[in-house]
Each structure stands twice: as C-alpha cells, then as structure tokens.
C-alpha cells in the first residue's frame, strides 16, 4: 500500500527527461519515480520547468523530448498521443483550464468518461450516480452540468471542475498543475478532499505541482522534489516542503 516494495514496476518513472520548445531547453534531466498509492509533490519557482514537466508527461505537442524516458507502469508514454495517454490512465489538472463555448459540461463529462474509461462507464444510472457523488464531494451544484465547459467560470469553479473530472475519469496517475493557486483555504480543502478520494486507497498515484506548502498540509505527500532550472535538485520527505516555505530556494541553487 505504501509502495515501499522497490521490486515492483513504478507507476510513473521519469528518467533523465530533457525537453525543449522553440529551441529553448527547459527540462535538463528530470528524474521522478512514483509508486502505486503514492503522492509526490514538485515545488519550485516560476519558470523552473514545473508546468513543462506536467505538459510533457501529458504529451503537449509544443514540447520536444530530446532525451530521457517517461514510463507508466513500464510502458513508454512518449510514443503515445495525448488522448492515448489519457486512455492509459494519465490525467492532468490544468493550471489554466480552457473554455469551450457551446460544449455543455454534462455532455463533455459523459463523452470524456466514455473515451477514457469506455462506453459502459458512461452509461445509465451508474454514471449518473457516480456523477452525483463526485459533485457532492466537491460541492458543485447540479446547475453546473448545463453550463459550457469553463466558459465564464470563476477561478475557483475552474479548479473544482478539474477535480470533478479527476474523480470521474479515475486515472492511474493524476498530475495537478498548481490546482491550489488562487484558491482560498476552503477551496484548497475541497480540492484536497477530491485528490485524497481519487488517490488514497485506490492504488493510483499523484504528482502535485505547487508553489506553496499549504495544500500539502491537506494532501500529505510521500515525497517532495525541488525543481530548479529544469532539474530536480533535491528530493525528500514531507518535511522538505516546510523547509522551503521557511527558507526559500536560495540554499538549493
């Protein structure tokens, strides 16, 4: 359960990952290994490559991987299209979720569940029940379903909607890119509740990208990594987050 059995294939293994965009090298050798049931955090300043790490794992077409590997349960993710990665069980909660005017939330959720988890999961009473439960968990009203995807959503609504998708798509690996930023303490607690429900006790894993240690008080990470200038410079236990909060990144640069 706690993933200490090192003989197993890790859920996610990122090794020596180098990535660039527009001729600029952004990731310069990232290594992360997450076992089933674990939650890891990546902390770092703006521009350190946190979002790029998330995007490259998900397969954003703007980034080119020049070196290194990304494997999900031993499978080479880099050979897959983004939608194939999603179907394999990778989920990204976006820092800036995109609005799709005219696409209704309810319709979008059903289609996405069908794509990721199969038609059966998106059908009938079971789907409706899981949808209602998930919406209750993160306090989203029913009226949400007839709105358009992220269209006119407040910052907090966008983040909660990402977590709603996380709960419904039931990924093996959830990557949360600054899902806590811009949220008040209640918002952070709600997001944390969702993440804990999605990961803890399910055998899934999560990678939480954040500036702040606040969310990590509610979603206890098994490991914390510090990313500076495209490289993981330090990894440690949950205590590392507090150290960074207190002392900043100076000593690590």
């Amino acid at each position, binding site marked *: 359960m706690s993933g200490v059995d090192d003989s197993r294939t890790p859920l996610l293994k990122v090794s020596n990952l180098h990535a660039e965009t527009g001729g600029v090298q952004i990731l310069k050798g990232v290594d992360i290994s997450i076992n089933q049931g674990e939650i890891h955090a990546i902390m770092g300043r703006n521009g350190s490559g946190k979002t790029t790490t998330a995007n490259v794992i*998900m*397969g*954003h*077409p*703007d980034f080119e991987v020049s070196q290194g590997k990304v494997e999900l349960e031993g499978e080479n993710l880099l050979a897959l*299209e*983004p*939608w194939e*990665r*999603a*179907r394999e069980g990778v*989920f*990204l909660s*976006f820092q*800036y*979720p*995109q*609005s*799709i*005017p*005219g*696409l*209704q939330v309810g319709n*979008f959720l059903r*289609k*996405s569940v069908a*794509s*990721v988890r199969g038609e059966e999961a998106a059908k009938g009473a079971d789907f409706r029940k899981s949808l209602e439960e998930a919406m209750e968990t993160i306090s989203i009203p029913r009226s949400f379903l007839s709105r*358009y*995807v992220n269209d006119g959503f407040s910052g907090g609504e966008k983040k909660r909607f990402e977590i709603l*998708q996380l709960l419904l*798509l039931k990924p093996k690996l959830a990557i949360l890119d600054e899902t806590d930023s811009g949220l008040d303490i209640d918002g952070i607690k709600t997001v944390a509740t969702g993440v804990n429900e999605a990961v803890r006790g399910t055998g899934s894993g999560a990678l939480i990208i954040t500036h702040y240690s606040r969310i990590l008080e509610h979603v206890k990470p098994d490991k914390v990594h510090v990313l500076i200038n495209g490289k993981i410079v330090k990894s440690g236990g949950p205590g590392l987050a507090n150290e960074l909060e207190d002392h900043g990144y100076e000593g690590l640069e």
Partner: protein
Amino acid sequence: MESNEEARQAVGEYKAGWHDSENSTIRFDFGLSEEVVREISKLKDEPEWMTNLRVKAYHHFVDRPMPTWGNTPMLDSIDFDRICYYLRSSKATEKDWEDVPDEIRNTFDRLGIPEAEQKWLSGVTAQYESEAVYHSIREDLQEQGVIFLDMDSGLREYPEIVKKWFCSVVPLTDNKFSALNTAVWSGGSFIYVPKGVHVEMPVQAYFRINAKNMGQFERTLIIADEGSSIHYVEGCTAPTYSTDSLHSAVVELVALPGSHIRYSTIQNWSANVYNLVTKRGIAHKNSKIEWVDGNIGSKLTMKYPAVILKGEGAHAEVISVAYSGEGQHQDAGAKIHHLASNTTSKILSKSISKNGGRGSYRGIVNVSPKAENCKLNVVCDALILDGESRSDTYPTMEVSNPTAHCEHEASVSKVSDEQIFYLMSRGHSEEEALAMVVNGFFEPFTRELPMEYAVELNQLMALEMEGSIG
C-alpha cells in the same frame, strides 16, 4: 402496409396504376428562352395569368444585370446555357412511398426521409429534380383545414389563394435570380394554416437534385392565418459532379396577425451546386417569423433570409450557421426591415471557414422613421480554422428613428492549440477535439433545431472535420 392502406383511404385520392412501368421522363434541352418558359407553363397546364407572369419574369431576368457584389467571379462563371431548366423523372406526385419509382424511392430511403416521416413529422414533400415525387400530410391536420401541397398542386387546387399571395412578398423584379425562379419555377411547397390551428410537429420538404447540369427552381409559399403556427423544415442534397448545377429557390412567408412561422433549413448541396436563394417573410401585427438557416454545402451560396416587420409588435429572428470548406463560399446573412412600432428582431450568425473556404456575413437591419421603440440585436461570430481561410463581415444598420434600441456584436476567433490539447488530455482524438469545439461554436444554432436535425448536423460537422488535421 396497413398504414399505407389507411393513408390511401384517408386522402381518398389514391390513383391506382402507377406501379406499372410508365416512368416517363421529360427532359428539356439545355438553355433558356421564352419558348422554354412557355413550354414549362403549358406542360403544367397553368392558368394564363401564371404563364404571363413567367414570361414577364423571364424578360426581367434577361434584362437584369448580374449582381456586382458578392462573389462576382463565381457568379459570372455560371453558364446559363449549360443548365437544364426542367426535368421530370416521375409521372406523378405520389401519396405512398410504394408508388414512387424504385430508384427515386431508394434515394429518399437512404436519406432517411420515410423513416423520419413516421417518427416525428406532420407531413412530407419530397422533390426530385423539378417535380415533387411524394407528398403526404397527417389526416388530423387535413381535417383541421391545413393545406400542405406541392406548389404545382397548390396552384391547381387553390388558384385564388396562390394568385393573391404569389409574388406578394418577393416581387417579380426583386432580383435577377428571383426573376429566374419566377420564370421557370417548378415544385416547392404551398402551405396554408387556418386561423388558430397549431401544427405541433414540423412538416418537412426534402429537395434532391440528381441529374448533371440541373437547375432546380422550387417555389414555396407559406401563409399562416391569424393565431396559427407552423414549423417547416427543409433539407437538400445532390450528388457530386464535376459540372455545375444551379439551385435558385424563392420562398415567401406570410405571417398574419398573431401567427408564428418557423422555417428551418439544413442546406447540404454538393460542392458543384450554386445556391442562390431568395427567402423573405412579411410579419403582420404581433406575429413572429423565424429563419433557422444552416448552410453546409454548395459551391457558392448567396442567401439572406429577410423579414419585413410590417405590423406592430411583430418579431423576427434569423439564426444561421455557415460552414465553408475548400472551394466554397458561403455568402449568407439576414435582412430585417422594421416598418412598425414595437417590433423586435434578433440576428445570430455563426460561420466557420476551413481549408481555404470563405465565409461572409452580409446583413441589413433598418428601422423606418415611423417605427417607434424597436429593438434589434445582431451578433456575428466567425471561427477560422486555418491561415488560408477567410471570413468577412458586411453589416449595415440604418436606424431612422431615435427611440430604437440597437445592439451589435461581432467576433472572429480561431481554435487554439491549447483548447485542442485540453480536450485531447480528456481522451479525445485531435479530430474529435476539433469537432467538439466546432459543434460547441454552432450550439446556439443547433439547440434551435429539432433534436433529430441537431444530431444530424453535429454528425455532418464531425465528418467535415475528418482529415482536417494537418
């Protein structure tokens, strides 16, 4: 079979014998002349006033120069001498699909018309080339006095009504192509809804061009009497040929006081069809006319559904979408004339262009000096899918009364890579993602359509998006 028998008895006019081979075809030679016009009228055994009207319209068509606006190079490339102006493939307009010649019936079967009719329509007319080949209306509507006929039968059976309203909304001299239609019209629908009758389920017309170099000139006239309502839906398709066909229809709507006409079109002509159509309605006191107009196909479409708000309190809506792909130009829009006080109008135009296609919104809204307290709202949104495609907006507002309340919004947007990536990260392929954005863009339009059409339109758009990812 039972229901067919019932239908025959209900209409009481079953003409036996059409199962036999007699599939006589009449095909006119290419080209147009006064003689051709007179021949069409003679063939239809029309009253003299109609023959004279046709001939007058023909001369107006010949004298009238080609429009000097819109896509003039495309317009100028129409070869009027290489078009067949009349073609009859079936001997009669049948009331039973069983009696429609096999080949033609198969075509409509494949288009799903008989199936849709059984499920959710009040009546259907199916036109193949120049003539309606099938026509039926639900018994209960007929009992309530609703007239739904193809236009030729309408003229034969109700000449006084036709004479009163024909060309009353779109006059003979309106434009070159409406004059052409008036000269050589054939087929189309004639509808009269009596006072206070509400036709709950839509009636549908389906137009099919099958022959090469064909000209289809249907003529539709809908009169909604006081306090009545009707929803008319039309669809159309044609095979793809390397040579061009011409579709030039005229539609006239008369909404008498307190009535409501909704006219929905899904135009899906093949990319070798010129679609030059004049659609206009007159809205009397407290009536409502809505044009719901989807243009997906054709080579060049020039169509600006219009409403003349003649009576106080009348309301007009034109909701349209246009999709322009490779080699296509959709020049579409709306025209609304506020002639009376307290009239309101709303125009929503959405266009998508892709693969070098060109979409244009062309609209006029005007308020006459005497019309007090009018409200008008115009929204045009364009979505451009790549760098080679084009979108233009030509909006005109002429407001001659200071009490009018006007709103106008226009936007041009592109599908962003970030939107596509977001959707792909939710398990949707790149093409599915693009179709989701496009269907979302069209949603304000599709939600106005009957569900079956909305689904069809979304599928149609998904097909158009296939192979569009470079």
